[in-house]
């Protein structure tokens, strides 16, 4: 299993790079995961997406609908792809410390 070291803490990842225990997520972990995604700096726009995903997940134990993510952040899907080149599910959810979305998404 791969893992990522953040501030001396070894955090386990699944084969797709998603952290295995979402409780170990914090802002530094997000930055480290973003770096793995090729995102050098998390801007306010990135954080807007990440925080929305994070809060939705904590409330509902699943990622939000992509349409709702766009609506609530005010970003188009194109913009989200610009921010997270792997897209909302594989990119943004990963940085936000959510488990990898499953099923036909």
């Amino acid at each position, binding site marked *: *299993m*791969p*893992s*990522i*070291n953040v501030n001396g803490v070894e955090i386990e990842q699944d*084969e*797709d*790079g998603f952290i295995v225990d979402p409780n170990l997520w914090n802002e530094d972990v997000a930055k480290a995961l973003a770096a*793995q995604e090729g995102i050098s700096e998390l801007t306010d726009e990135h954080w807007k997406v990440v925080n929305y995903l994070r809060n939705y997940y904590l409330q*509902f*134990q*699943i*990622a*939000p*609908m*992509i*349409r*709702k993510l766009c*609506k609530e952040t005010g970003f188009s899907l194109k913009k989200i*792809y610009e921010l997270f080149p792997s897209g909302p*599910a594989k990119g943004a959810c990963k940085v936000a410390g959510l*488990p*990898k*979305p*499953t*099923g*036909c*998404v």
Partner: protein
Amino acid sequence: MSAAVPQKVFDDYRVLPDEVLKPGQPRVEKFLQAMRKSLQQKENWTFWLPYILSLDTCMKCGTCAEVCPVYQATGRREIYHPVFRADMLRKIYKRYFTLPGRLFPWLVGAEDLTEEKLDALAESVYRCTICRRCSYVCPVAIDNGVIVREARKILDEIGIAPGELKEKGTRLQLKVGNATGMPTAAFLDMVEFLEDEIEETRGYRIKIPVDKEGAEYLLMHNAGDYLAFAETVMGAAEVMHAAGVDWTLNSPNTGINDAVNYGVFYSDVEFSAVIKAHVETARKLGIKKLVVGECGHAFEALKYLILRLIPPEERPFEVISILELEDRWLREGRLKVDPQKNPEPVTFHDSCKLGRLGGMFEEPRRILKACCPDFREMTPNREMSLCCGGGSGFAIMEKGGFLKFRMETYGRLKAEQLKATGAKVVACACSNCKAQFREIINYHKLPMRYAGVSELLANALVR
């Protein structure tokens, strides 16, 4: 930091990680036991006869290869020839389960199975989407799709199946009601959001019924549609509302609220467990008709495979595709549309499961022609439609560089076909196709978008 790159076992991709494939561990004996079982009629209720006939009969004419998207797109690489793949299993069959092969293996093309050959076989059966274009043209009716599925079944019996389809697919669905892991509270939040969205885009509010017992129609979507293709769910809701019928969606509280059944792709055991749970859910709700949303393999499962497993008296409801309903209601004049609302040129992609397998060619075309003034066919289409490359679970598999395989084989041919139409919208009625089109449009930079058939129909509705 990152995972070690798994060793190559077949080609440049590794869709089954080491934890699943377990290369180096002894698996041949178990494989042969499971294969023996698959060859016994009593143990194999799905497609035993076509399976045995397909193993016995191939005359190596190569007609299948001429229509195989993977073989053609890779510049006719031998390892992607449909017969090469089927022969990987056929050689084992002949060597261990036929008399001439046991006695004179060199005469009949029989070969010993080794652990390395098992690795290669396991990866190879996940290079074919079971689109069954080859089966359609075979002069002696060999079904390579059945062979691939049987091989996947045998592999699953010995613990080799993609996690996307099993642990995070059928197993998760049976546990929580859907393969997305969506709990009821989240589902209800999504439905409310969709009601808001419909109101905002159309200017009127509709109530989307949930868990209504005894409803005439239970509309069950691929649950992934809520998350990724919400426009299809919204469109279908608007259509049901406009038709004025007694209908409902269902939440995970009622059992299974996801039409998918990934067992179709790799396991009869998983298939049976999921479809029984579907039937139980529909019976508990006491609905009259189960409407399958825009999902190809779910239609195969609930419309056709179900007939071979569940006796009629145990499924007291009709199964119908959303496309059949939409087509019927349009022709009856129950739905009124203004095609000028969809001015862009639109083409239609025949999903393998709805089209070549299910025969549903005209329904989506009648719908689209009614609500899109510039409808353009792709060539080829209908029975000879090219698989998009998302079928048999591929749309949600991307480990080991697999997205590239999907994009450079099936995806490349499809992209060329799409471009030639000049259409701005590719309509389709299957979640796997939509997920694959999302990637194709992005990867091959096509100036178009994809849309569900229900979405385009809803957009053309007049009140």
